[in-house]
């Protein structure tokens, strides 16, 4: 696909076409057994999706995060079992830092968030040691983009690299969320943080997860509304009962709030023509909190509406809801992001509150 054809509508259309036709239950289940879906990844890579955010100079498309909305939302809506979000973000940061973008799927590590990692100066390049939990898709990734606590970013080879041991774990959705045990693993490249943004992996990872949550929420809501219209009890469709209507209306409101907050956060994220990071932290925090809260209420409502059928492995609902449970806690839970926002707002006191909200600077 040539670069200038990657317009927003085209991305949306081609993502919808690829995901809706190629991603089925069978593929999702096989991914949960730990199998790597090379064919599906190849189709994604052929479309260039994984390089959407990477700079043109490094062979990417130099698009901003808003352009990534249909892809990231699609990962949730169609429950695509691939590390596309991780690779997109890793490629963006790698290209911005001036690294060569490694081939294949990539993953992400933020030093200091639930892991104990230490950097040591090696001969020539630095090394990384310690344990990192919940590294998404690590077992299948060729490399990890690492955001270091001192503000630098680095690239860590994974597949077969010396000093790198992968212990497989899965998240609620059954997808790889591995533990990496590193013993003086050599960092392939280290550079200054190219963005005016603390914790770029953590923050932009939360942004990606927020968008994926929105997609999974839309899927769960649509399934619940459809089921409520079909399932008859006591002589009428359960969707005609006021109690069910009120619950689904509440869920629709939560999903709307999460969607708007996420779209604003995407527009406020650095990439493409958008160079400012001034509002990135605030808008991402708002999105991750609201999307996480919507996931909590929404999973409960969607399952309540579905009853027993939604609890079966056979039914498709759990592909959406298990992702909601997984993603609401990845790259910082809603509670963790809320606590950050709360500390900043309290520090700003009453006088600073509203200016902080309108300038989006908390």
């Amino acid at each position, binding site marked *: 696909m040539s670069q200038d054809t990657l317009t927003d509508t085209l991305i949306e259309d081609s993502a919808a076409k690829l995901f809706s036709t190629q991603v089925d239950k069978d593929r999702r289940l096989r991914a949960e057994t730990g199998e790597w879906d090379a064919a599906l990844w190849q189709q994604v890579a052929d479309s260039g999706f994984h390089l959407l955010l990477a700079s043109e100079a490094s062979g990417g498309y130099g698009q901003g995060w808003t352009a990534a909305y249909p892809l990231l939302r699609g990962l949730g809506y169609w429950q695509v079992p691939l590390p596309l979000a991780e690779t997109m973000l890793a490629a963006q940061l790698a290209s911005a830092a001036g690294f060569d973008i490694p081939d294949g799927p990539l993953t992400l590590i933020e030093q200091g968030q639930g892991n104990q990692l230490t950097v040591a100066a090696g001969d020539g390049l630095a090394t990384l040691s310690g344990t990192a939990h919940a590294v998404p898709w690590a077992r299948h990734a060729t490399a990890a983009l690492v955001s270091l606590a001192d503000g630098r970013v680095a690239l860590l080879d994974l597949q077969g690299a010396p000093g790198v041991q992968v212990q497989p774990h899965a998240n609620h959705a059954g997808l790889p969320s591995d533990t990496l045990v590193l013993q003086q693993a050599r960092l392939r490249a280290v550079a200054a943080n190219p963005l005016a943004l603390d914790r770029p992996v953590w923050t932009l990872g939360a942004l990606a997860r927020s968008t994926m949550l929105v997609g999974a929420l839309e899927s769960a809501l649509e399934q619940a509304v459809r089921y409520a219209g079909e399932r008859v009890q006591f002589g009428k469709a359960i969707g005609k009962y006021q109690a069910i209507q009120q619950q*689904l*209306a509440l869920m*629709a409101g939560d999903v709307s709030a999460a969607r708007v907050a996420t779209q*604003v956060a995407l527009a406020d994220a650095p990439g493409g023509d958008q160079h400012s990071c001034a509002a990135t932290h605030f808008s991402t925090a708002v999105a991750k909190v609201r999307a996480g809260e919507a996931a909590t209420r929404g999973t409960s409502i969607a399952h309540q509406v579905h009853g027993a059928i939604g609890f079966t492995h056979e039914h498709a609902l759990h592909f959406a809801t298990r992702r909601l449970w997984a993603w609401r806690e990845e790259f910082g839970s809603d509670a963790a992001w*809320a*606590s*950050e926002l*709360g500390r900043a707002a309290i520090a700003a006191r009453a006088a600073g509150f509203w200016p902080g*909200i*309108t300038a989006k600077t908390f």
Partner: protein
Amino acid sequence: MQGLTIPPGALPPEAEALRAEVRAFLAAEMPAIPPLKRCRNWSGADADFSRKMGERGWLGMTWPKAYGGHERSALERYVVLEEMLCAGAPVGAHWVAERQSGPQLMRFAPTTLAPKIVPRIARGEVFFCIGMSEPDSGSDLASIRTKATRSHKDGQGDGWVINGRKLWTSGAHRAHYMIALVRTGEKSENRHGGMSQFLVDMTTPGLTVRPIVNQLGEHDFNEVTFDDVWVPAENLIGAEGDGWAQVGAELAYERSGPERYMSCSQLLLEMLDASDAEDARQAEVIGRIVASYGALRQMSLGVASMLARGENPALAASLVKDQGALVEQAMPDTAHALFGGRVAPGSTLDQAMRYTTLAVPSFSLRGGTREILRGIIAKGLDLR
């Protein structure tokens, strides 16, 4: 589920310049208004303040200049509103006239009533109230019984005589005019048929305003009795029998603004000043409110943008209102959880907690109760 998607709305750069002007104005005006009065938010009324806003061109901002308006964008108006609301400015006197009555008159009585009255609304000199609810009709407006009958009065020509009673009329005691929804014909197959809207001068003989004191001991609601109240024929707004449809258009305005989530802002500000960033409970709980403010502001801005583009924001506005009500309604209970029983009597936090706890049950009454709002949303989901 198309109608459930709210497109984010972005503020143009000129809006931020305006924001700075508004903040400068508020910095000068607000110190005179004590925190307890700021809790009243958009129900606090101050005719002088309204006049000052009119002088600055901040009323009727989007209206045509021919009507005394300023032909600015809906998003600029939005900025003024949200700044006023978070500051707790006393915008209650002109609120109804500026949000609903002015637009209604320009739309449905553009050559007769609007030219005489709307410019005075834009100057902050004329205030309105809305005569909708009645003793036996809350949200169910089809059951309205106040009635207008055609009549002729010597020396004044054709007109109508209104008899009946309106209840829960906010601000009737300080309003110059009411827009009243009354019955002018029988219900037909269309259960909302036979109703019309009238402009009623509050000084008309036969019209009586009786205060209804609320549980705060304050006076905002009124009962308005019509005893052979005569209104001239030209005071019919729009077409006879179209009252229900005209009101429907109005309700969307009522559900769309930033006032739909910001009613408890003063209490939030007091909590911020009383909190400790190192307290894990306070930080998380307040952070969730901050996130809700952030998201609701963007939803509300999105609705303002839809209005600016001439799109129908009815469903989107219901979503904002329902989500906003969750935040507003929870605020005093949140304050209780964080500070209940540990606040010095008479402190500004104490005042805000007391006032807002008692005031908050009335917030769900404004713009539709929760059940009705969610019913509208369920309809948007094709469940009804």
